């Protein structure tokens, strides 16, 4: 733990860091790959839609001595449809029959009760008409669209449109991954899944917003300095919020994992399981996308702005000049006002650049507060 604590400090100070922005092309590639896989899986395998979407019935018999085979036979006898039968808990059965009408469904309950010598009242039944799923799906899509639009508007106001777009891309990316996992693994899609999926949106955005918030703050006066490019500041933001992102994701995943493995595990398939499964997959995807996709995208978009281009140019020129002048030396740092070159020189190699950057950048505004050029860690005081 203490190591973790130190890591946090080092990340914060930019002593360690990962060059998320610099390696963004690679991560974009990874994401594109995942997305393509998801789409292919979706196209080839399709989703395993639950009876809520196809129409049919699910019966759960909490306690019975009957075997799965018996149940299958009974269901087949009555309806002519193949049933999917699962064991639930110790001696319960879950019998799922697709494509039957509610009237038929009634007969099945009676027959099952008869056959297995349980009271009809002890059988849980969920009977769904075929068009119900359509409606749920339609509403889910509407919800999704409304939510995305509202979020983009909100983010565009609270932050800026580039961030809104990046967040949107990251969200769509999360959904694709989650749906892809469902298609690949063949998990059943139920209303619970849809709930989970829609919840992920909020959550994934939550993560993204935390990073953006830090980025916005750190990039506030970016054009007034000539030390760090936007991308470097962005990288620094990701790194300094990394601990937070990891912690929030872990803390969010823990209860969901509890739901998934314990709640769901005890009862077998069910609402708890459906929601938590999609949440679990989606949360992981959301954490990934906010770090590797959303922020790099913002940086990409931002760097296209004329003023950011100009800034980058200025910085590069300066660095080139510095390299020419004080090349050999980290020692060169003392001779330069505001310390830029030395940081550049030493940090560039191992991807710590941006990490150190913003600290220094902030300090610039109050140069009197620094001791010598190297007092960076304490520099952030306003």
């Amino acid at each position: 733990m203490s190591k973790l604590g130190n890591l946090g400090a080092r990340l914060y100070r930019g002593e360690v860091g990962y060059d998320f922005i610099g390696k963004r092309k690679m991560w974009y590639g990874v994401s594109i790959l995942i997305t393509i896989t998801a789409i292919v899986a979706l196209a080839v395998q399709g989703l395993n839609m639950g009876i809520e979407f196809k129409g049919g019935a699910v019966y759960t018999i909490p306690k019975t001595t009957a075997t799965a085979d018996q149940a299958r036979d009974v269901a087949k006898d009555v309806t002519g449809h193949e049933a999917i039968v699962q064991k639930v808990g110790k001696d319960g059965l879950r019998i799922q029959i697709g494509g039957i009408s509610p009237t038929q469904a009634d007969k099945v309950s009676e027959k099952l009760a008869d056959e297995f010598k349980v009271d009809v009242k002890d059988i849980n039944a969920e009977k769904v008409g075929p068009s119900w799923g359509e409606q749920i799906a339609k509403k889910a899509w509407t919800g999704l669209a409304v939510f995305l639009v509202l979020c983009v508007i909100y983010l565009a106001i609270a932050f800026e449109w580039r961030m809104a777009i990046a967040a949107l891309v990251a969200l769509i990316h999360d959904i694709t991954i989650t749906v892809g996992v469902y298609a690949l693994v063949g998990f059943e899609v139920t209303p619970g899944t849809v709930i989970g999926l829609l919840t992920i949106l909020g959550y994934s955005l939550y993560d993204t917003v935390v990073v953006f918030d830090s980025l916005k703050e750190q990039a506030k006066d970016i054009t007034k300095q000539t030390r760090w490019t936007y991308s470097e500041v962005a990288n620094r933001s990701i790194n300094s919020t990394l601990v937070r992102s990891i912690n929030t994701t872990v803390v969010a995943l823990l209860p969901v994992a509890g739901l998934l493995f314990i709640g769901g595990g005890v009862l077998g398939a069910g609402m708890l399981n459906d929601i938590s499964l999609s949440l679990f997959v989606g949360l992981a995807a959301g954490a990934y996308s906010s770090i590797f996709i959303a922020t790099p995208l913002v940086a990409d978009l931002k760097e296209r702005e004329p003023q950011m281009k100009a800034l980058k140019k200025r910085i590069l020129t300066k660095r080139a000049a510095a390299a020419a002048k004080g090349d050999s030396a980290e020692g060169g740092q003392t001779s330069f006002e505001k310390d830029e070159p030395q940081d550049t020189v030493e940090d560039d190699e191992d991807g710590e650049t941006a990490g150190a950057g913003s600290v220094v950048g902030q300090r610039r505004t109050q140069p009197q507060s620094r001791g010598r050029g190297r007092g960076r860690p304490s520099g952030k005081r306003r």
Partner: protein
Amino acid sequence: MAAPKKGRPQGGQGRPGRSLAFILIVMVALTGGMFLSGHTTPRLGIDLAGGTSITLQAKSQPGKPNAVNKANMDTAVNIIERRVNGLGVSEAEVQTQGDDNIVVNIPKGTNEKQAREQVGSTAQLYFRPVLKQEVGAKSPDPSPSPSESGKDKDSGKDDGKKDDGKKDEGSGEKATDPSASATPQGRAVTDGLKDEKDPKASETPKPDPSASAAADKLNKDFAALDCSNEKTRTKVSENAKPEDPMVACGKSSDGKTWLKYILGPAAVEGKDVTQSKAVFDQQRGIWIVTLKFSDGGAKKFSDITTKLKTQSPPMNQFGIVLDGDVVSAPSVSTTLDANAEISGSFTQQSADDLANILSFGALPLSFDVQSVQTVTAAMGGDQLEAGLIAGAIGLALVIIYLVLYYRGLSLIALLSLLASAVLTYALMTLLGPAIGFALNLPAVCGAIVAIGITADSFIVYFERVRDEVREGRTLRPAVERAWPRARRTILVSDFVSFLAAAVLYIVTVGKVQGFAFTLGLTTLLDVVVVFLFTKPLMTILARKKFFANGHKWSGLDPKRLGAKPPLRRSRRATAPVDHPKEA
């Protein structure tokens, strides 16, 4: 929730005690309210308590593009509610959800099959002639109705509670002068109709010799009927067929007393009504209800009114019977056909109600049963238990993680989570009776997921504080300086969460709503708790030596956080020493 704001006065900074006291008072008040109201546990949904939940979806009807609207849905809910309660169910709830869904929740112990048949079918509205009417209590001596009804027809005119006025315009059908004599038991109708040979009309007179046994039974039922008793009231008309006479209950026009009726066979069906409106009659200054009938309906209606106008009270009335209840019993003074009106002592509300019932008598909309879920109480209990266990384990995991990572700081997180839990529980419990909130399985899920969201806010704040400590600040200023920035992040991200929950709640149906509601509620509470509880608590604890001196276990040890008290240390000097493994 607001967009991030800067430079607001820092809440609670100066007086952390006040905020704390405030939220504690709120907590105590809510908990007290919980006990006072007598509801100490949240109301459980069908899937946890056991029972049946039926979701109906309105079908859009050809030719009536706007039929699925709020008014129609509300009417349908009312009608369905009456039916479900007619099954003798207590506490059944019928609600609209979304634009076109009605969810019927029936607690355990009801015949689900029967319920489903009842709720989904079209409402039954009939116009039946009144054969006999009395105040609704049990009548001591059952006097056979024929003897009562043989009064003079003239006395009936104009003294009905609901007086009918409207002349039918342009219909040459004004039945000739009522020559029919007032034979007992409404038999007048047969001859009242000159040129009609309505089969129904000949059926209307009940005391057919062959049917006398049935008539006796009817009279007996009538005598025994006690309309002031809700149970018998709904039961009495349960199996009445349209072609048979029936006994029924209905409120008097002032809505205060119950009246009981013997009603003849249905003369006109609800589906014959094409339109009905509540209209304010300027000339008379009263509310009236206008009616329009279809062609077939107009004919039948003119038949029945022709018969009725010759009768004496109470037999000059027709009962408008909805699902076995007499919703109105206007008296008739002229023959009416395609257009008619009902006047009486209507308020706008009651006129609207009646108009709704009339125009939608055949139910405003037709419904498809979309899903039926039956859950046994045992199963529901298991699910609740599993949900609670999962929640407890999830909570425990979060706590362990927080304690390991944040050490002493986790105390604040734990207390805040506790405060959040108390508020959530109390609100959920109180919202049950208040707005009918019922805790269902997805709602439990929502609450569990919310643990994570709530903890997130603390993490955001704690990390901020630690960042400030890393800057070399002492704790008290660190806590204050970290707050505005953390506050902004928390607000922004909670707003997003809330937005997600609100959108989910608005566009979805059924189970999903429970989830969304819980999520939204807990997100709001998160903001409240962080602002009024966590922050002030942090301020107070920052004054304690344990935290302020950065005790090893406080989670705020500057050394561990990588800050060194002499503020001017160089990074290059410390880095290799502190972190030899640095990349």
